[in-house]
């Protein structure tokens, strides 16, 4: 397959290639959520993102919100975007447009307080979106290859089998993708606690090793502050029921998603990779915040493993769901794309890895994943402080 890992995508002004060509309607603030929801009802072809951010916080969190929302607009799967603000929020349309000053893709903005209220704004956004959909439909396609892809790796609702079926099978697919020049982002710093040793052995150089140690040590300290003596068991009840005993056990299984390539770079939340290959992003273990950060960094697809049966998708990037056991694959047939539980009944990790890579290619060529069909979309930006 590696001979022809190509797809027809959309080349963006910054050179990256999208595997989707979405018209995104993005509120800069929670107060615009109702307007974008209404636009989404009227125009199902538009992607709207509802989120609780944009106001009520200060300092570093405003920066994280701006960086993340800008990164989502810049994600190559977004063909064009309409920003909807209220008018008195810190994360305003004007500020986000200033952050996106170098962005050359179609971008519009509208402010509810200057447009006559919610209904008039929804009418205007609908008209803008209709125009943008026509513009996007006329965009030419261009051939992309594995080296154009950045894939986010995630696990949610892990069980004891995740670390021996779904995660290492994803790791096999990632090894193949990286060998073809592609990029994969391993994240969830909480799920690296207890697994620092094997991660450090894979760091490409001393600088990467030092960054890995710094983010994992800091996350361990934060986890201890929050959970006290329970920190070693930083597991959800479902994890423990399924047989996982300690955070180290969960983490060691979690990092197998990254495969066996060297770790080339450690990224901050929502930071775009500057290198190809396997990179690590510092994100919370909370899957919604983690995948949002990786999509803001430019990931065009997300490979998401689950043991307990997470249905989570993402608004602008297809999510490929891989189950760690066949029971949950059958029980959640609407939501899960690939059954890595077949490893328990005799398939090899290489065979399931090949299935995952083949599906990734079909998805890059336009096939919808189950999460896309369901429009099961989650979106959350990692925050460092309480709301003010």
């Amino acid at each position: 397959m590696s001979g022809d890992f190509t797809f027809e995508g959309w080349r963006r002004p910054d050179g990256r290639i999208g595997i989707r060509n979405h018209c995104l309607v993005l509120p800069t603030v929670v107060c615009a959520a109702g307007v974008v929801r209404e636009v989404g009802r009227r125009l199902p072809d538009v992607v709207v993102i509802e989120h609780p951010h944009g106001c009520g916080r200060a300092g570093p969190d405003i920066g994280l919100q701006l960086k993340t929302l800008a990164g989502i607009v810049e994600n190559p799967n977004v063909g064009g975007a309409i920003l909807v603000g209220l008018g008195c929020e810190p994360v305003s349309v004007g500020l986000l447009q200033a952050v996106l000053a170098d962005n050359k893709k179609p971008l519009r903005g509208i402010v509810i307080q200057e447009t006559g209220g919610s209904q008039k704004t929804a009418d205007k956004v609908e008209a803008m979106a209709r125009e943008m959909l026509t513009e996007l439909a006329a965009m030419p396609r261009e051939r992309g290859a594995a080296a154009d892809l950045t894939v986010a790796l995630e696990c949610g609702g892990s069980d004891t089998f995740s670390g021996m079926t779904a995660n290492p099978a994803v790791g096999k697919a990632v090894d193949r993708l990286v060998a073809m020049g592609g990029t994969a982002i391993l994240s969830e710093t909480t799920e690296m606690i207890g697994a620092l040793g094997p991660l450090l052995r894979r760091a490409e150089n001393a600088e990467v090793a030092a960054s890995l140690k710094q983010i994992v040590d800091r996350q361990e300290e934060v986890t201890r502050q929050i959970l006290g003596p329970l920190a070693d068991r930083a597991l959800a009840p479902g994890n423990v029921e399924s047989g996982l005993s300690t955070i180290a056990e969960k983490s060691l299984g979690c990092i197998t998603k990254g495969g066996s390539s060297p770790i080339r770079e450690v990224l901050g939340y929502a930071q775009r990779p500057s290198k190809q290959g396997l990179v690590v992003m510092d994100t919370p273990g909370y899957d919604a915040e983690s995948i949002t950060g990786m999509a803001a960094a430019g990931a065009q697809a997300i490979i998401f493993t689950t043991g307990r049966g997470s249905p989570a998708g993402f608004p602008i990037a297809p999510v490929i769901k891989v189950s760690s056991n066949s029971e949950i694959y059958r029980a959640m047939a609407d939501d899960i794309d690939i059954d890595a539980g077949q490893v328990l009944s005799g398939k090899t990790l290489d065979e399931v890895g090949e299935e995952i890579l083949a599906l990734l290619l079909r998805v890059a060529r336009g096939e919808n994943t189950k999460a896309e069909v369901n429009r099961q979309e989650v979106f959350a930006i990692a925050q460092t402080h309480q709301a003010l």
Partner: protein
Amino acid sequence: MAARAIRLDPRDNVAVVTADVRVGDLIDAGGIQVRATEPVPRGGKVALTAIPSGEPVVRYGEEIGLATQAIAPGQHVHTHNLGGRK
């Protein structure tokens, strides 16, 4: 027929059973066999060797925690006898 358990690394002193195991069942973990001395639910870990209290429990070839009490081969290993390193 022996119940199946998966041992991921030759250094591992536990293996994960792929189906519920009853007391007395023979468990085969890729060549190493133990007899279950207590029930082990599907997805649970079974000790393959004796693990003294305070010694590492090893899965993936790495320490996943320390035994909080002496564990005999064939015993179920979970939160009741395995704790994180302090």
